[in-house]
């Protein structure tokens, strides 16, 4: 574990520029996958509108960086905090919807965000805007330094997400969350406030998703409503990653992310057919192996990379 970390942390010293960009993209997707996995796989909050926060984070970073002369990386915590703040009223609204209707509700929110962003003319309206050169330079003077910083930032945010997730899932609340997933009634009889737990999970993941969004568009240097609030890029792919890898497991998102990038590098030339293959694979996995590839591996070999399993048994009577 420590070795992997050192190798990854020193990547800017040994990896080429394109490798570095690729790695940070992997980190960002893995982060999104973990967050969606916690939402849907553990807390039972199936959202198809996480692109709302990816786009919000991106747009907020651009707006702040263009108005305040601080390096964008220093703005990340602010973006995260703002993401959490805006998620509070949103959650109190859409938590009135349940199950699949909750899912579509999250999508409506993302649409509202996208349409609103298109109305902000100082950020380019519907066609979007680029990060001004002065802001880009403030990240770092040289291009390679800039990319190193972006890479490190992505790694740090990913580690933050994984760390928080671990703390969370091993805490009383985290166990409660797993209990909710397994048996809502049992969780209630344990005296766990389901609503508040889910609310908290939603708000925190919103904040972290916003930070990832900020990083994604800091690397792209350009933002537009359609790219920032894309349901395909920030939700469909993420869902496929988690479902194919193994929803509700900690190992699944890693497997799914690796597989996703492998498929993308080999099949991306197929264009739309590639997306159809991805969709069909996710459907097949959901029908035949609902715990994904990792579920299959785990069932056959009993391996666990993360010692997280705790069994709670409830009697029927």
């Amino acid at each position: 574990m420590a070795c992997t970390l050192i190798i990854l942390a020193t990547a800017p010293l040994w990896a080429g520029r394109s490798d570095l960009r690729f790695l940070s993209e992997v980190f960002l997707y893995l982060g999104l996958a973990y967050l969606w996995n916690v939402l849907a796989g553990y807390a039972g909050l199936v959202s198809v509108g996480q692109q709302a926060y990816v786009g919000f984070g991106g747009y907020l970073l651009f707006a702040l960086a263009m108005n305040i002369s601080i390096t964008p990386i220093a703005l990340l915590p602010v973006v995260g905090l703002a993401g959490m703040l805006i998620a509070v009223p949103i959650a109190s609204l859409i938590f009135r919807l349940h199950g699949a209707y909750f899912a579509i509700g999250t999508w409506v929110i993302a649409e509202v965000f996208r349409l609103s962003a298109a109305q902000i003319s100082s950020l380019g309206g519907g066609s979007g805007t680029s990060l001004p050169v002065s802001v880009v330079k403030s990240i770092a003077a040289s291009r390679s330094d800039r990319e190193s910083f972006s890479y490190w930032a992505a790694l740090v945010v990913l580690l933050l997400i994984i760390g928080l997730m671990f703390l969370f899932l091993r805490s009383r609340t985290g166990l409660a969350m797993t209990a909710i997933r397994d048996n809502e009634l049992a969780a209630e009889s344990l005296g766990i406030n389901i609503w508040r737990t889910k609310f908290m999970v939603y708000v925190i993941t919103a904040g972290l998703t916003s930070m990832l969004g900020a990083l994604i568009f800091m690397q792209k240097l350009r933002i537009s409503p359609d790219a920032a609030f894309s349901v395909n890029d920030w939700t469909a792919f993420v869902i496929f990653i988690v479902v194919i890898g193994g929803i509700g497991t900690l190992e699944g998102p890693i497997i799914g992310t690796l597989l996703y990038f492998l498929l993308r590098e080999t099949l991306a030339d197929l264009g739309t057919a590639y997306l159809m293959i991805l969709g069909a694979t996710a459907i097949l996995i959901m029908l035949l192996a609902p715990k994904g590839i990792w579920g299959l591996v785990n069932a056959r070999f009993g391996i666990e990379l993360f010692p997280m399993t705790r069994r709670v048994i409830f009697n029927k009577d």
Partner: protein
Amino acid sequence: MVWVNAIIQGVLIGGLYALFAAGLSLIFGVMRLVNIAHGDLIVLAAFLGLVVTTTLGFHPLTALVIVIPVMAILGYVLQYVLLNRTMGSDILPPLLVTFGLSVILQNGLLEAFSADPQKLNAGALETASLPMGSLNIGLLPLLMFVVAVCVIAGLQWIFYNTALGRAFRATSDNAEIAQLMGLNKNHVFSMAMALSLAVVAIAGIFLGTRTSFDPAGGPARLIFGFEAVIIGGLGNLWGTLIGGIILGVAQGIGAQIHPGWQQLAGHCAFLLVLAIRPTGLFPKVSH
């Protein structure tokens, strides 16, 4: 006067939204299934209409004779072969499978028809209008609204006056006991999806006649339909019509204020209802 006109147009387009919503509401009522691919199926029906009108030279409304049965059969098979396997207490499988389906449909249509916007040509019907005082009411939007009312009345009639409707209600109440009565749950669910997609076929043809459509347009239609369902109140078909009208009027007023606010105003109306009356304006009254 522009305002009156905006509102009337909004009411009429509300009929189309009610058509989007009715199929969604129907399958939720019978089997608690929310079909994320619903909007993409509407767009698929529009493309089917395009194929029928261009290859056979049919008028879009005549094309319904082919598109409705094709979509209904597709719905039956889709439910019987694929979606019935996902039904259960866990909401994740049906959600993710229909989500996957949505992506497949969008990209399949893109592959087959390219991203170019298409439109169904309804000829003289498109421009015909009824003068009403100083206003002109388009015949097509009016027809669309009347059809929507008829479809909802028809669904209501099927639900409360036929053996199929009885089977729908019984299975929705308690699928297990319904099976003890000799009802095959899989067949009943598949019939519900067939009926839902028959309505989708009508919605798709009217969508294509009224505006241009492209393979990426599904999600927006899903969202409009969903908003109409929630505004009207879950499980209430007439409420769905009112929901569609409210959505249409809100969009019409929004567009009148600022062209960019059309959709935003519709979403705001939805969020407002959600904030004030989370169960919708006309929630189903239980017996």
